[in-house]
């Protein structure tokens, strides 16, 4: 800090003090921010990715890119940092507020990047995509659109699609001569029959709250159409007052009171394997879950996943405005580019790799379904081609793909929103109270 002391005694810059404060506020686990100062010098581009098993696809992409002619042309190399999963959003936030910000970073689109966009920290990729045939035609349009904010693109799809699917246990269905539901009336009928047979109709990891959210997302879509949540997502809290939200909450309440999720669902977690086990062991007949349920079951109960796991679209709600082909969930994850990057050319050249066949192949081999337009012909080589094709077509044919609410809205709205959803599910608030609490969220 010597050079600064002459500056009227201003020993530490304000940014430095705040940076130090932020890092000390965070736990030590989060402080190991980018070790290299990426912005500006040497053309090296730092990329943050979510450090789970699927990150090996990004590792391969980086190796491939760094050896390519495109990297030489852009005079840049990518340095990948795998950030441990649970703390990813908090670490990204801290890093982006510090001098060690990544040039390119993994995100969920929507609300997860809104604060960065408002702070002018993102590169607007709209024109880049428009003028580049590889990027423009490389991805499914609905997926590309889901990563946009106010009509402008800030993200390039970089992982598999994660639609929420209604899974069912084929063994249980066969034993009781049941068919997967296509309408809400059929679902209620199944509910009745399963309860009579002493089987919990639906597994639900209520302790995590987000599995509860999935029910509301689909019901609001089926009852009121995708427009209802679109309005909310765009910052209009009065959208919560739409009759479809109240109706969805009442429907959920009815299901809970009816025992559709069993008694102890709010003590059951998805993350620790509780809900998947209930489902695989036939204690529950169905499970509304993201497409990753397949790989979860494959890991924990391989026989069940291979032989007895069935899947279908979320049923139609009679009289509802939503198309049965509409999908909710995470369209995919995205790379966004930091506006302060020292080598935008290299960053964008790297992002183009995500549209390549080699990248899509790596995703497929990992059990993911790429959101690239060339993906369909690769699906035969997926670990389960039948499931892969179902998922791909589900998303490809979807008129609307609603991003998970908790990722679509601002973090300061999503936290209280999840709390309100939890209160509805555990019976701490009525559907009407639920709606009025949500209307109060800014």
């Amino acid at each position, binding site marked *: 800090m010597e050079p600064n002391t002459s500056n009227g005694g201003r020993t530490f810059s304000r940014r430095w003090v705040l940076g130090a404060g932020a890092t000390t506020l965070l736990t030590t686990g989060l402080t190991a921010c980018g070790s290299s100062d990426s912005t500006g010098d040497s053309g090296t581009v730092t990329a943050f990715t979510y450090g789970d098993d699927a990150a090996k696809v990004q590792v391969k992409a980086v190796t491939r890119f760094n050896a390519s002619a495109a990297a030489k042309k852009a005079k840049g190399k990518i340095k990948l940092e795998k950030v441990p999963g649970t703390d990813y959003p908090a670490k990204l936030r801290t890093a982006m507020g510090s001098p060690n910000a990544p040039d390119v970073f993994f995100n969920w689109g929507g609300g997860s990047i809104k604060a960065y966009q408002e702070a002018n920290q993102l590169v607007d990729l709209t024109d880049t995509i428009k003028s580049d045939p590889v990027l423009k035609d490389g991805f499914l349009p609905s997926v590309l659109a889901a990563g946009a904010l106010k009509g402008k693109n800030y993200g390039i799809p970089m992982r598999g699609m994660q639609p929420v699917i209604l899974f069912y246990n084929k063994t249980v269905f066969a034993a009781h001569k049941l068919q997967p539901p296509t309408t809400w009336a059929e679902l209620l009928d199944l509910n009745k029959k399963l309860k009579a047979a002493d089987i919990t109709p639906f597994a639900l990891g209520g302790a995590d709250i987000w599995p509860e959210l999935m029910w509301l997302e689909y019901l609001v879509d089926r009852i009121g159409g995708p427009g209802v949540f679109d309005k909310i997502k765009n910052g209009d809290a009065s959208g919560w007052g739409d009759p479809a939200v109240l109706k969805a909450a009442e429907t959920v309440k009815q299901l809970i009171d009816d025992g559709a999720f069993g008694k102890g669902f709010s003590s059951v977690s998805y993350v*620790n394997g509780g809900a998947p086990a209930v489902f695989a062991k036939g204690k529950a007949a169905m499970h509304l879950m993201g497409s990753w349920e397949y790989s979860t079951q494959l890991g924990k109960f391989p026989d069940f996943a291979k032989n007895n796991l069935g899947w279908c679209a979320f049923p139609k709600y009679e009289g509802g405005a939503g198309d049965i082909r509409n999908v909710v969930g995470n369209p995919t994850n995205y790379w966004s580019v930091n506006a302060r990057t020292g080598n935008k050319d290299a960053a964008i050249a790297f992002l183009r790799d995500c549209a390549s066949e080699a990248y899509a192949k790596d995703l497929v081999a990992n059990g993911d379904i790429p959101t690239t337009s060339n993906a369909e012909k690769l699906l035969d080589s997926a670990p389960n081609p039948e499931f892969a094709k179902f998922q791909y077509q589900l998303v490809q044919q979807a008129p609307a793909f609603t991003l998970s609410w908790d990722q679509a809205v601002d973090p300061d709205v999503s936290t209280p929103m999840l709390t309100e959803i939890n*209160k509805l599910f555990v019976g701490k608030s009525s559907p009407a109270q639920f709606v009025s609490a949500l209307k109060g969220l800014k």
Partner: protein
Amino acid sequence: MRSRSSPRPYRGASPHALLAVPGVLFFVFFAVAPMVLAVYLSFTTWNGLGDPKPVGLANWDKLLHDSRLTQSLTVTVLLTVTSWAFQTVVSLLLGVWAAGRQRNRAILSAIFFVPFLLSSTAIALLFYALLDPNFGIIHQDTLGSTSGAFLAIVFVGGWQFIPFHTLIYQGGARQIPEVLYQAAAIDGAGRYRQFFSITLPQLRNTATTSSVLMIVGSLTYFETVLILTQGGPGTDTAILPYLMYEAGFKSYDFGYASAIATFLVVIATALSLVLVRLTGFGAMRSTREGM
């Protein structure tokens, strides 16, 4: 005991003040500086990006009118009182027992101490699995009901910290002079009379130490709540530190989170001062005076 006025024999060899520098720096950097920053941030709005913008008393105003804060305070106080009662009773009895000379005492004491060696996160994860309604030990919606979640937190906290307080009470009980019991026995006092008339009064300072640690510890209790209940069901177990975590690292409202943090520091400091005053702990009178 050496009297205070006796001359110090090694005056010239007292350690140099410089030796304290690393410790002081460490304290300033990791305790004082963040606290000062938190106070500063509590007067700003900051989402972690760019510079914090001063907003005057807005966060404090919000804090005073936040219905969740009132609820959170109630939960925090209830949790502190219940945990204190549960942990004190059990560790006092265990500690006094462990100070004796029974067979197998040493082995059992060592076993009782094990939970304290585990990390709170590991313990919380363990109990989370044990409380699973389908595959755990109790087939009930424990964490999904308000009282169940609350008692689970009290129990898990106790399970972890009782060994530590047992150790303190064991040490305290060992310090009680044997002659007191011998005299009491001659006077015809039974075991219960001995416990209430000798052991308990003699453990007064030990109880204060242990209680201050428990109460201040309960105020910063966090991991167990995060893992077991995430403040749920609804917001029924959202204690103050959890509320702070949620505001800071889930909603990215660092200004408000700092206001909660500052509030917590004020309460904890005030509470420990009051405790020390009320119990006469600060005077550090010897329990063996007058012997």
